[in-house]
């Protein structure tokens, strides 16, 4: 097993941030960066720019009219979320089908988590969305570093009808939340983002940010339940009841959230394809 950990966590093979993305992140670090600088950099990566436009035009944002300018999209997102967006674009920079599906799942989770956080009037809504964008960091690392074991995880989950989380523990001896928080540590991500990644399956165990982790946990369950599952991870994970209770949402509130999420997804050009079609 230690040989597996070694291959998984060998830092010289870790994904690196492309130069352009690193430049964007550096500009965002400045307190008074100019929107023009950022949009010029973003426009150099057409894939990144078009993903950004799709994201802000999602009905979850409730922006009136269509956003067509990269600059306006960057302003609407804000620096924290833009940072997470660039990081996730790096992470999911792959043509591998299962990684593309995981990107859809992550984006959907982020918009849904933002929707819930805003309903709860959370001041950390932006961080919650950023954390949700990369909550499955560990899954990407497992797929990259241990491709054969990742297939074995998928097969075990399917044949035993268990969640990816349980299948990972069985096959690798470590699950994607643990792997993810480890990589987030190496990347020096802010504590709130690390906590969301590490506790999105067990928010009640998180001491510093249980609410933020619980929102992403709930978003993950709803999004998977609807069918935006992300690759072959077919099974909805178990709900952490204790963590949900801390959000002080009534069952009716949660049913309203599920309804709102489904109707937003129905009119979202990125995600509506996951729903049954007429």
């Amino acid at each position, binding site marked *: 097993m230690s040989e597996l950990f070694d291959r998984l966590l060998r830092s010289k093979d870790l994904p690196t941030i492309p130069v352009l993305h690193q430049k964007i992140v550096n500009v965002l670090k400045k307190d008074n960066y100019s929107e023009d600088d950022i949009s010029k950099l973003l426009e150099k990566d057409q894939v990144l720019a078009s993903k950004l436009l799709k994201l802000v035009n999602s*009905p*979850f944002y*409730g922006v009136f009219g269509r956003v067509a300018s990269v600059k306006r999209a960057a302003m609407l997102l804000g620096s924290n979320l833009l940072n997470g967006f660039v990081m996730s674009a790096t992470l999911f920079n792959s043509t591998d089908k299962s990684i593309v599906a995981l990107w859809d799942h992550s984006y959907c989770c982020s918009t849904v988590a933002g929707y819930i956080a805003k309903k709860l009037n959370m001041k950390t809504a932006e961080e919650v969305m950023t954390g949700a964008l990369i909550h499955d960091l560990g899954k990407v690392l497992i797929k990259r570093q241990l491709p054969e074991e990742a297939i074995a995880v998928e097969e075990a989950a399917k044949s035993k*009808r*268990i*969640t990816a989380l*349980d299948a990972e523990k069985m096959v690798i001896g470590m699950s994607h939340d643990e792997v993810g928080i480890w990589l987030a540590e190496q990347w020096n991500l802010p504590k709130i983002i690390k906590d969301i990644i590490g506790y999105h399956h067990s928010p009640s165990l998180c001491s510093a940010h249980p609410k933020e982790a619980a929102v992403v946990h709930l978003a993950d*369950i*709803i999004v*998977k*339940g*609807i*069918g935006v*599952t992300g690759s072959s991870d*077919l*099974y*909805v*994970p*178990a*709900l952490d*009841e204790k963590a*949900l209770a801390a959000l002080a949402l009534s*069952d009716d509130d*949660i*049913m*309203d959230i*599920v*309804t*709102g999420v*489904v*109707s*937003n997804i*129905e*009119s979202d050009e990125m995600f509506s394809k996951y*729903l*049954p*079609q*007429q």
Partner: protein
Amino acid sequence: MQRIFINELKPSMVLADAVKDSSGAVILPKGTTLTEKHCAILDERGIKKVFVEGLPISREGTSFEGMDKKIDERFFAAGNNPLTLKIKDRIKELLS
């Protein structure tokens, strides 16, 4: 109760749930008996589907058939706590 597409709506159908926009504001209340004008308003506001009374539309042979079973399978490993089951049932109502 059935959730149907806007283009399947017919005047005289009755809304089984309020129709809300993405910010949660009510566009039409539960119990509204639809007219042509209502249907046009819903379409204009970008609403895709609404709950109506009864089961007016057959889903045989479409991708909706077997949706309940698919959703049951997705929730197979999620345990049986009451809130999880409620979420599952709500998703079934919304997607079937």
